[in-house]
């Protein structure tokens, strides 16, 4: 009798472990496929003014799972002294896959070559869409020339996670 009871206990323990394993695996696949189907707002992780190309170079990171199509780019040039200008609807058909970084090059007018100084503001923007979603989004990033930005996308995501946890703790 004791032997059978020991067997029963062992079988129960191993059964619980196998159940946990299978359940965990199925839940993980379900949740990760759900997360992959959420579109994410693009995050600009790098911005600088390239003198040789006379262009604003933006590194755009797509944190979500759905691929993003950048349709047009635009630029607002606000120098410290003098008059600025705005460019809009420059076509650019760039696809950013989920979790990838893509470089966008937005060219200034040819007459601005050599005249961009430290302290001028270059505001680069772009419109983007997602497949199967009929909406067009727009976002922009203001860059102060002389203060280039270069961030690590994982750091950006970690900071966002910390902020979200702070908000959750406050709400408790």
């Amino acid at each position, binding site marked *: *009798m004791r*032997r*059978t009871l*020991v*067997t*029963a206990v*062992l*079988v129960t323990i*191993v*059964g619980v472990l*196998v159940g946990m*394993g*299978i359940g965990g*695996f*199925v839940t993980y*696949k*379900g949740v990760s*496929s759900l997360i992959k189907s959420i579109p994410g707002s693009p995050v600009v992780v790098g911005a600088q003014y390239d003198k040789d190309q006379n262009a604003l170079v933006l590194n755009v990171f797509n944190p979500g799972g759905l691929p993003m199509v950048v349709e047009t780019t635009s630029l607002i040039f606000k120098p410290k002294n003098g008059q600025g200008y705005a460019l809009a609807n420059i076509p650019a058909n760039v696809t950013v896959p989920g979790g990838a970084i893509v470089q966008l090059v937005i060219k200034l007018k040819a007459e601005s070559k050599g005249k961009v100084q430290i302290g001028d503001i270059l505001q680069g923007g772009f419109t983007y869409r997602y497949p199967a979603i009929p909406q067009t989004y727009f976002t922009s990033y203001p860059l102060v020339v002389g203060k280039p930005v270069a961030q690590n996308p994982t750091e950006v995501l970690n900071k966002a996670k910390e902020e979200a946890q702070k908000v959750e703790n406050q709400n408790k």
Partner: protein
Amino acid sequence: MNFWWFLLTVIFILWAFLLWIQLGWVALISPEVAVIILTALGFGIFAFRLLANYVFVINAADALKENQEVDKQKLAQKSGKTEEEVSQIHPALILELILTALEPYRYTFYFGFMLTLILAVAFGILPGINPIKDIFEAIFWGSALTTFLVWAFENFATSAVAELIENLSEEELSPNVPQQEQNQQNQG
């Protein structure tokens, strides 16, 4: 083998075919869950012989504990001995023989499970091939389901027979040669 085994095989073939042609309601399940069910059914076809014999052994051991009779013909058929030999030896020993006769099938079944485990770990370590990693892990969990069942039944059957044998005394276990032959030997 028998009706239930054929039913299991038919269900497996049906499920595999539905997955192959990706019929609508089967596609509602994620591919990993579908592969888990498929592998569990597939391994179940091969585990059927083991499970059927283990269930028979457990039932026979329970019957012997209550001092009831066990079907001699089935004992003979499963252990490979003739009916005459079966009536001479104590049924508990015949049950032990049945368990030993299952050994090669048990060995190959655990080998099949070990293959799925090794493949799942190997593809899990390789970087970058995510869909293949998921499918092999799903195959592993499906085979783990069926192997857990086989392992549980095997342990129950072994413990039942072991309990039966350790509770029997020496004279009950010695071969029960019919009285006529013994008298002839004494006279001869």
